[in-house]
């Protein structure tokens, strides 16, 4: 057998990548455009749209709110999702199977329905357009993801290893801290990464529960694009692409580190 997939398959894969990535490449070109409107290819190149972006108050406020929100949502989702997943995976709660199904339900609902439901639930509590309300709204999305990922992570841990720790005198909490948690680092990194990106990216739910007092970056972007079409959003997209790549690299480092450490 030949090494790899053969030239035809390779060429086909390359073509698919080109088709998929071409729009992204166009966005990158436009971001560095010197024109006042979206023209491809640009007639000249400059950093003016990045400077305009930096000076754009609403978008910058949206960006900082989104970053903070994503951080809070990540921490909150792990704090709720990890213990819940552990209890479900170890079947320490009654009806663990039913609970698992229940926690997965939000993943199956259209976000539009979820957004509306959240709006109706948060309004009486005066939590719409607040950081708390947005964080709660996003966690309805992210916690199920974390639970799902972590249940799988805990379920695939080597059998008997926790029992070994217990037989050596470790209390349940010490077993969790010294054995279970370190072995679950790759799953934890993936959960954190996913929560962060899901929250940072979330548009539909945010559109429902944002307001002038608290508005996330995607919501501000939608507002901006509604009014104008200039290369500013392209510049913003490039910033987001670079930031995402950076996060992926960091997670890869952590997960890779975990692999070096043991798994």
């Amino acid at each position, binding site marked *: 057998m030949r090494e790899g997939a053969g030239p035809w398959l390779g060429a086909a894969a390359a073509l698919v990548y080109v088709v998929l990535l071409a729009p992204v490449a166009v966005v990158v070109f436009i971001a560095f455009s010197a024109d006042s409107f979206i023209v491809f290819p640009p007639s000249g190149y400059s950093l003016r749209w990045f400077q305009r972006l930096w000076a754009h108050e609403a978008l910058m406020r949206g960006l900082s709110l989104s970053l903070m929100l994503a951080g809070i949502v990540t921490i909150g989702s792990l704090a709720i999702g990890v213990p819940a997943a552990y209890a479900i995976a170890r079947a320490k709660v009654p009806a663990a199977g039913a609970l698992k199904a229940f926690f997965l339900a939000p993943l199956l609902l259209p976000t539009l329905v979820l957004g509306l439901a959240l709006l109706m639930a948060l309004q009486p509590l005066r939590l719409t357009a607040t950081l708390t309300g947005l964080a709660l709204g996003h966690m309805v999305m992210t916690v199920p993801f974390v639970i799902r990922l972590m249940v799988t992570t805990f379920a695939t841990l080597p059998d008997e*290893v926790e029992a070994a720790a*217990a037989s050596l*005198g470790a209390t*349940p909490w010490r077993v969790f801290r010294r054995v279970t948690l370190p*072995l679950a680092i790759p799953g934890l990194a993936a959960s954190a990464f996913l929560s962060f990106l899901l929250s940072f990216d979330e548009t539909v739910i945010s559109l429902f529960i944002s307001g002038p007092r608290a508005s996330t970056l995607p919501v501000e972007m939608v507002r901006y694009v509604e009014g104008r079409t200039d290369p500013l959003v392209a510049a913003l997209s490039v910033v987001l692409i670079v930031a995402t790549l950076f996060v992926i690299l960091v997670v890869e480092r952590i997960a890779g580190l975990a692999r070096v450490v*043991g798994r």
Partner: protein
Amino acid sequence: MEQPLAARNHQCALTRRMSHLTLNRLSKRYGETVAVADVSLSVARGESVALLGPSGCGKTTTLRMIAGLIQPSAGAIEVLGVDVTQVPAHRRNMGYVFQSYALFPHMSVAANVGFGLDERGVGRSERDRRVAAALSQVRLEGLSARKPRELSGGQQQRVALARALVIEPDVLLLDESLSNLDARLRDAMRLEIRDLQRSLGITTLFVTHDQTEALTLCDRIAVMHAGRVEQIADPVTIYERPASRFVAEFVGRSVVLPVERSEAGLVLGGRPVRTAHPVPESRALELFLRPQRIALAGPETEAGAHNRLGGVVRSHVFVGDRLEVLVDTQAGRVTVETSGAGAVAQPGDAVSLIWSPSDTLVFARAAP
């Protein structure tokens, strides 16, 4: 060392009476499945007992209940007369060597072995000293910085053993720990474990489905079948005087022949046959013999008080350290084991099979 015999006997009797680990009608049910049923066992201090039985007979379940990793459905576990049935695993002080070894993959060999000492709040220098001592006990001095996945199967097994021994457990529990190793390594580890166990005088329960392991490694054997203990005895008794048909079949090779009951006694292949052992009430009976306890002799040999069965040699099978001779008799085909030395009957020769009544066991025939 020179103690009067009486005193020594007395001491012996004392330690025998003082049971270290006692299982009292221990049972475990999973819904309809009965994994372990009414297992009672008492192990003296320093004694090693094997739980021997086929796959799925409840050996691991028994061991896990003793370690506190599974809650029994009924029954009690006592250590030195104290009921520990409700004590959680981390307060039982039992060394458990798992079948999969269950080493902590993210920790070095030294950290694995030191784990139990950390949990007991042993200070750093003392811990390092004891870890080093435990590693040298299992001859792994140079490997303390390695990760488990950088070790061979035998080395992992020894780390698991050192990790269980270093906490100075009340009871050492070994679950099929040698079954993953190749034959030569297994033999070496068996001897090593037995020497360690004897020199430390540690009370040990050894789970295995390998009868050689049980026969060579342990003071007593508990043969398990379908969740129950069929017989508990020393290896010689288990082999020579199996208490049930199951034990006779499971431990060692057997020749099984149908035997009838008549007015005068038992009849095998049309000739009377004697046994020195009790015969069960059942009507359909079977005779069990160990193939190496049957002597081959000339066709007209006088058997005297021994049993005799005539037959014709069918074939030879050379099995390295012994020669198996297949003999067709009126009662059926019989395999006889000989050393292969001296004159051997050739295929077609008429021979007599001769064996002692004390080697003759009779059990009820198994339901077809």
